[in-house]
């Protein structure tokens, strides 16, 4: 589903964010991406979204090499990938419901479908009361959950979550992780970059660990730290 082929990403001349990363994620897998702050997790996510280009190497999503996708087809790629951004990236001039709805609008879905589905999804992340609030009127955790809701509302084939629980209390975090697992169970490929050790240790999924831009560990049924 996603394949990194010897990918190196430099920012500017000397910041090496990723170095010769080889990684293959199969359809329907659930993968945790762990690593210290600044180890390159977000860079990896941004590469998959074709937000940035690799300096060397090739990235394939659904067997298409990203560098061969013409600019006008990038939206199509992104509609197949739901993404929870580390900094949420909500639209400040749209309410929670409109932000979630926007991800459906861009795929050209019916107005009526949007109107029924958005409240359901917001309910799932525990925000049924916050539908009509603007991002600046939401708490950090609430914004994060709107971002989560937006990422999977259009039922993408791939779901990427960059630190989806950083602003959430442990209880809510468990709820979100269960949600991600449920989504994974219906066939969606899920990639979660996270620092939540308890969660990673509890869920026993495949864990890919980055260190200074290199993949240092890749274990099926892994844990957050090495000693497992």
């Amino acid at each position, binding site marked *: 589903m996603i394949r990194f082929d010897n990918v190196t990403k430099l920012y500017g001349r000397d910041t090496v964010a990723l170095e010769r990363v080889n990684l293959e994620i199969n359809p329907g897998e659930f993968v945790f991406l762990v690593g210290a702050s600044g180890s390159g997790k977000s860079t990896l996510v941004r590469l998959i*979204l074709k*937000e940035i280009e690799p300096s060397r190497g090739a990235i394939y999503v659904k067997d298409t090499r990203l560098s061969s996708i013409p600019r006008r087809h*990038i*939206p199509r790629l992104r509609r197949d990938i739901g*993404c929870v951004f580390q900094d949420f990236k909500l*639209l400040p*001039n749209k309410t929670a419901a409109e932000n979630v709805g926007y*991800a459906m*609008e861009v795929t*050209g879905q019916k107005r009526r479908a949007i109107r029924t589905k958005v409240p359901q999804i917001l309910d799932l992340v525990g925000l049924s009361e916050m539908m009509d609030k603007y991002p600046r009127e939401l708490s950090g955790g609430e914004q994060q959950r709107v971002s989560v809701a937006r990422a999977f509302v259009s039922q993408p084939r791939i779901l990427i979550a960059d630190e989806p629980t950083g602003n959430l209390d442990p209880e809510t975090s468990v709820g979100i992780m269960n949600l991600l697992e449920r989504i994974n169970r219906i066939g969606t490929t899920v990639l979660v970059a996270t620092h939540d050790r308890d969660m990673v240790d509890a869920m026993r999924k495949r864990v890919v660990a980055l260190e200074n831009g290199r993949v240092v560990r890749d274990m099926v049924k892994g844990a957050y730290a090495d000693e497992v």
Partner: protein
Amino acid sequence: MRFNPGFFLKEALKNIRLNLLMSVTAVTTTFVCILVLGTAILVSGHIEGIIGSVRQDVSVEAFFAPDATQERIDEARREVEGYPEVSEVTYISQAQALADFKDTFRDNPEIYQDLGSDVLPASLAIQIEDPSDAEAVAGKLKSAGFSEENLSYPQQTIERLNSVTSYMIWGLRAATALFLISSILLISMTIRLSIFARRQEIEVMKLVGASDGFVRTPFVFEGLLQGLVGATFAALLVVWFNYLFVDWAGTALPFWPISSSAVNAFFVVVVLVAVGAVIGVLGSFLSVTRFLRV
């Protein structure tokens, strides 16, 4: 992708409401620029009108020999009236010429008291539509039997008038073009700035899978609406001013050749509104495009 103008229009209206300061700025900028541009167009229209009517006053006088017969005079008059460059021909008889002369010197009767009624020649006063034709008309008159010394046309004055008025018209058009360019520049910069302030929004839209057109359309609608609103108000104000001015000039400056026909109000409104709308649309389109490369 299905195109849904209702959706995009609603988005645009909502954006205008939410980014009120920016919308107000864009509309006001459009308003001010179009107002200045419209005023420039009107003023130059009126000045060109005045210039045109000043030019119309150019005339050639053709004097008949003292012994010219009435047939000769009638014949010459008919011929001159047939010239396409000529707008009006007035015959001034010897008696009329003397009366005019006396009127001019009415304060100094010593001058004309000894003049016989046939001292001053009869003449044709020939109004010429375009002063640049004066020389051609003079040439025709010469071949029609008038000698050089029997023709009086303000050669030098006409040339000056020609060059001055053409310089003025040229200058007016240059100034109007300057205003037009300034308006376009200022309005589009305001739009660019207001879209620049929202570049992160555009980026987010692209990242969640919106196509370029989907992102752009509400912004373009927004620009169109802002341009239309600002330009319409400005255009109506300009035309209203013009109406008041023509009205006032008719009573306060009766001797000035100002007429409402110098400027086609409807045409001005259409041009101004079109300029506003086109800048609004194009400005938004190009500005958004700058930030779509995500």
